[in-house]
């Protein structure tokens, strides 16, 4: 099946993105990336320590994987921009996941500041994937600001609650045609990932549910398959769910009575 995801001109064979935080050991993280087949991983700049080679998270990421640095810790657009600049200067490439969070209890993204940071960084040539609260106007503003994809939260970060934002994400999928929609945050099970893909999301990003599993590499593979299954179902144009049985004699038959 030739069904590549394309983000700002770069092709991805897998529609599963993996976050690298929260793993109990980096070797398990490395194996999870490998077993999932994920070709894009996110890494928090704050966790990268260049001085310590045996600890450096980057040395556990397989060759050829696209590394997208996230701006974890940024509380406003200016801080996100500064973090992106440090990442670029340190040689981590131009792929940036913007996370602007000014709420430490729920970790909700600040949409307004996210738009500002997207605009600045896109203007500087970064490939910007903003994490956002699913709002249609904001999604359109992000596209206008130059976002390479839009990443709405499924539910609160780390909550494993799945697609609590389902209705609003469906609106984005319907209305945003210019860039891919990547469902990020709250995806707690492979079935949640499958559900997002069946809806028509272009990709799914997970972290906690994989890192926190007893066997992270196995869970990562399960997520990748959930994503694949959901994508195949979407492409196969599955039948709509029906409440009750379909009437065997058509309700509109009277129109055609002779």
């Amino acid at each position, binding site marked *: 099946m030739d069904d590549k995801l394309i983000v700002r001109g770069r092709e991805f064979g897998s529609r599963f993105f993996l976050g690298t935080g*929260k*793993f109990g050991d980096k070797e398990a993280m490395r194996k999870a990336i490998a077993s999932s087949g994920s070709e894009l991983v996110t890494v928090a700049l704050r966790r990268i320590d260049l001085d310590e080679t045996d600890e450096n998270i980057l040395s556990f990421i397989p060759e050829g994987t696209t590394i997208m640095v996230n701006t974890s810790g940024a509380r406003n657009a200016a801080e996100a921009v500064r973090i992106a600049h440090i990442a670029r200067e340190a040689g981590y490439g131009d792929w940036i996941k913007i996370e602007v969070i000014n709420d430490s*209890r729920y970790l909700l993204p600040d949409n307004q500041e996210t738009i500002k940071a997207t605009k600045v960084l896109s203007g500087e040539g970064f490939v910007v994937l903003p994490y956002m609260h699913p709002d249609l106007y904001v999604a359109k503003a992000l596209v206008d600001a130059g976002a390479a994809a839009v990443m709405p939260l499924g539910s609160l970060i780390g909550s494993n609650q799945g697609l609590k934002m389902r209705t609003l994400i469906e609106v984005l999928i319907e209305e945003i045609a210019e860039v891919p929609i990547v469902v990020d945050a709250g995806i707690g099970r492979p079935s949640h990932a499958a559900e997002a893909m069946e809806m028509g999301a272009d990709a799914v990003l997970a972290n906690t549910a994989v890192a*926190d599993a007893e066997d992270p590499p196995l869970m990562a593979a399960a997520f990748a398959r959930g994503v694949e299954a959901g994508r195949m179902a979407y492409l196969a144009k599955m039948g709509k769910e029906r409440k009750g049985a379909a009437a065997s004699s058509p309700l509109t038959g009277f129109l055609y009575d002779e």
Partner: protein
Amino acid sequence: MMSKSLRGIDLLHLTIDDIRRIFAVDDRGLLEEMAHAARELTRRQFGRTISLYAPLYIANYCENECVYCGFHASQKSMPRSKLTMEQIDRECEALAATGNRSVLILTGESRFHSPPQYIRDAVRIASRYFSYVALEVYPLDEEEYRELYLAGVDGVTLYQETYDRARYDELHLAGPKKVYDYRVSAPDRIARSGIRHISMGALLGLTDWRRDVIALFEHVRSLEKRHPGVEFGLAFPRLRRVADDIHQYQEVSDRDMLKIMCAARLFFPRVGISISTRETPRFRDSILEFGVTKMSAGSSTRVGGYLEGENKYEDGQFEVFDPRSFDEIKAMLRAKGFDPVVTDWRNIVNS
């Protein structure tokens, strides 16, 4: 099974009133349930990671008379000193060489000997060696905090000691610390200054720990609402009696400590909780699963302790009960399935 008086409590949606009820009983079944819920929640929020840091004492002059503290002003046998900037540089170098990237700079509470400018200059030096610089110093004015923030301070630790005003007055005999209100209002000033992390705590044992912990939780919760962008941290140091202190204190058992830490995690799912080297290795290692996100490692509580190396546990503010080195703590964490996090912030030039 929980006892009858606790029916209806939902551990994942605790209210302050629930915590009051929980603290009022000694219920083994409940504690077990709390431990399970706290462990689950901590894993979901922080994964299997523990951040490491080390304290750096740069001065121990003090103007206060806190009866329970080894640093207090009239403690004439305590050698007093203050590092020069050159010495601070060398201390930072020695500490950073152990692999540590996160530092907590401490002074005694003396505006005269360790004024804000002195602290600021120390912060500028430390910022060159560490990716995260926090302070534990006397409370300051908002403008002073702002200056320290601009100099590179990422976090401030400030313990209220006790929220019982009468007891506070009784135990703080003299010195600027005697003004309860200036200390209790400091976290608001820190938050307004731009500083991103604030660690708070009570010195458990000064009075009934239940009342102090409840008051601390209420204080932090109200701050969270006023300053949602600030990351709050909690610590629960237990009082260790110093030699010449004759005051009556209330013991906080290991069981109480576990209950407090689990309650903190359940009430504040995202708050960082640290465990100090005042606790024994056995207790520190056992309690890790239930909410701890931060621990000090390879600590010296003595001014100039990292360069001197040898005598680093003598003449400290308090006795270090966990003398393990930075590398030993890392190895212990790995053996327990935790990833020791050395770098969890990057200096992004505060503005």
